[in-house]
């Protein structure tokens, strides 16, 4: 039962996060994403690479801002370097990036899985 509650809480949080309005400016966020080389680890499309996958982003802008200022697994970008307003722009841009199809929706990947070799 506790597990079910935890899953439910997670789902509600995810839905809430997905519905968090992005108040930043997408175009300015894109410029920041490139200027600050976010793409270097997260890819130009936010789908990862050397760093974590950002799309879909399951954080609120508040959590996103707090994390980038004081992260656990990436270099820090403090308020001195990236202001909260700039991070809101970045957040808005990342939120605007399209999600990927799943593997079973991609014929080529389905063929590779089916072939087994």
């Amino acid at each position, binding site marked *: 039962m506790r597990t079910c509650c935890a899953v439910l809480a997670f789902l509600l949080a995810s839905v809430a996060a997905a519905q968090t309005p992005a108040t930043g400016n997408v175009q300015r966020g894109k410029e920041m994403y490139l*200027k*600050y*080389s976010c*793409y*270097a*680890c997260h*890819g*130009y*499309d*936010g*789908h*990862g*690479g*050397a760093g974590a*996958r950002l*799309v879909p982003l399951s954080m609120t802008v508040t959590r996103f801002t707090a994390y980038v200022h004081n992260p656990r697994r990436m*270099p*820090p*970008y*403090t308020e*001195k*370097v*990236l202001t909260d307003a700039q991070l809101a722009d970045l957040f808005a841009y990342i939120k605007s990036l399209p999600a*990927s*199809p*799943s*593997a079973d*929706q*991609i014929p*080529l*990947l389905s*063929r*590779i*899985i089916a*072939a*087994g*070799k």
Partner: protein
Amino acid sequence: MGAAALATRSAPELGAAQVPSGARPAPPAAPDSAQLRADTEPPPRSASPRLVEKPASDFMVDVIKSLGIEYVAANPGSSFEGLHESIINYGENRNPELLTCCHEESSVAMAHGYAKIEGKPMLALVHGNIGLQHASMAIYNAYADRVPVIVVAGNWRDAGTRNNGVNSYHSAQDMAVIVRDYVKWDDEPASLPAYAESAVRAYKIAMTPPMEPVLLVVDHDLQLRPMAAAPKIPRLVMPSPPAGEWSAVREAARLLVAAENPRINAGRMARTPNGVTLLVELAELLQAAVNGGGDRVNFPSRHPLAGPGSGAADVLLNLEVQGGGGPGGAAGARAPDAKTINISSLGLFIKSNLQDFQHMADADVDIAADAEATLPMLIEEVKRQLTADRRRALQDRGAKLAGAHREARVQAMETAAFGWDSSPISLARLSAELWDQIRTEDWSLVSWQGFVSGWPGRLWNFDKHYRYIGGQGAGAMGYGAPAAVGAALANRKHGRLSINIQTDGDLNYAPGVLWTACHHQIPLLTVMHNNRAYHQEVMFVQQMASERNRGADRAHIGTTLREPDIDYAKMAQAYGMYGEGPIAQAKDLAPAIKRALDRVKRGEPALLDVITQPR
């Protein structure tokens, strides 16, 4: 202008250029007319009218032929002109065939790639001093990668007869010292009998595990000397590789058979296809997870036991794994009281200066021997110690590992879908599109997959030893393109389709090897991983700036290859190669791959410039 780079100042002029500190240096003195003639005009007629129809360098070619050497890679240099002429005329340019290279680093890296496919060395002929220094980085890569290459350098050994100018600039009292820290053995034979013995010895030393490059310095005047009677060529008999001692192997088997969660880590283990066969047999006996490593195909990537396993390992078997403990030790969880068995030939040969040997291995059983040569003994001993009950118990473990392997494959497919339609093109998409068109061919990946996030290893089926050749060795750029050409050369006679996923930064070190591939009609598909950067360094500088609280908005300075963007399709075309691109849209990739593959299947090299995600 090749390796015989011109020297336009004589030694006295160089001395004159050394001015007191603070004084404005005088402009370089112009070369005198005698110097200029020596450096730029055809060689003077010999003082003696006597023809030399049986030069000593013909015998040198006989020795090279006796070793079964197929190719000699060289950028021309006058210090080995005698040997050059003998190879192409006396030797009829067959076994060995001379390969025209545009840089000595390319010559040695080609030999490096060739050896990883063919399992034996080819020669790299380099000019005295300057050619050897050009080659030195590639020699260090081969050394760190435990790959046999025979380097031959020319020299004008006798200061009493050598000319001023280039001949002196390209001569040395002890030339091998330039690379002695990273060749296994070197010699400068003073006579033909000594040359014959040294060449055969060099081959044996290079090919005995741990395999390494070797260097022969060959005197220019010895090459030109008339030969009366050919000396005897020593018979090449390869020594058996060093294998483990029985009692240590028995103890290793005891630990492995008793282990509840063993893991096998394989580094530069499989020297031959048989190494893969042996490791499969051992892993299946033990039902142990095998981390196949990234330096060779040691274990089939689709084998159910392939992978890191799960949980903390209680016994680790490291096969030719370099370095242990210390920062950045071997990946994978291990129990606090885990036992470690090391089987490695590296302990038999370590030099002092360069630190490629890394941290000492933390071992409970340390077997100083070649792992591939030791595996038959270990397999026999494991079979002897395994009871029927133990075998049944191990089957359960194997079933769990197979499940984890399947799960990892499914997860890889899910991850491959991320950014599937993105522009620039994702490396997973690039690898999947390539795989779709080569999987029914007899293919060979002749480039390192570290810079492409290991996607070929996750999506393709590395089921044979030649499917993948691993990386640079010492991590030096400039290896990728020439090693791919060398490996493709070795694959050519086997009719294999060679694929090179080529990083842009690497290609720019010495792109002339594209011409070599065209000139010698070496079929090879090169697909650019063009992320327009030395991308690893972008991330390093970005992290450094962030940790200093300075932001990362200048991390591109000194690390990226933009403004202007480099047009690799045109670069390929300039060297005479089919080139297409830039390709930035994923939907355009498959048809472009097909067009380029059609060229490669007709026996020529081709290049696709693909604009890619960074990693």
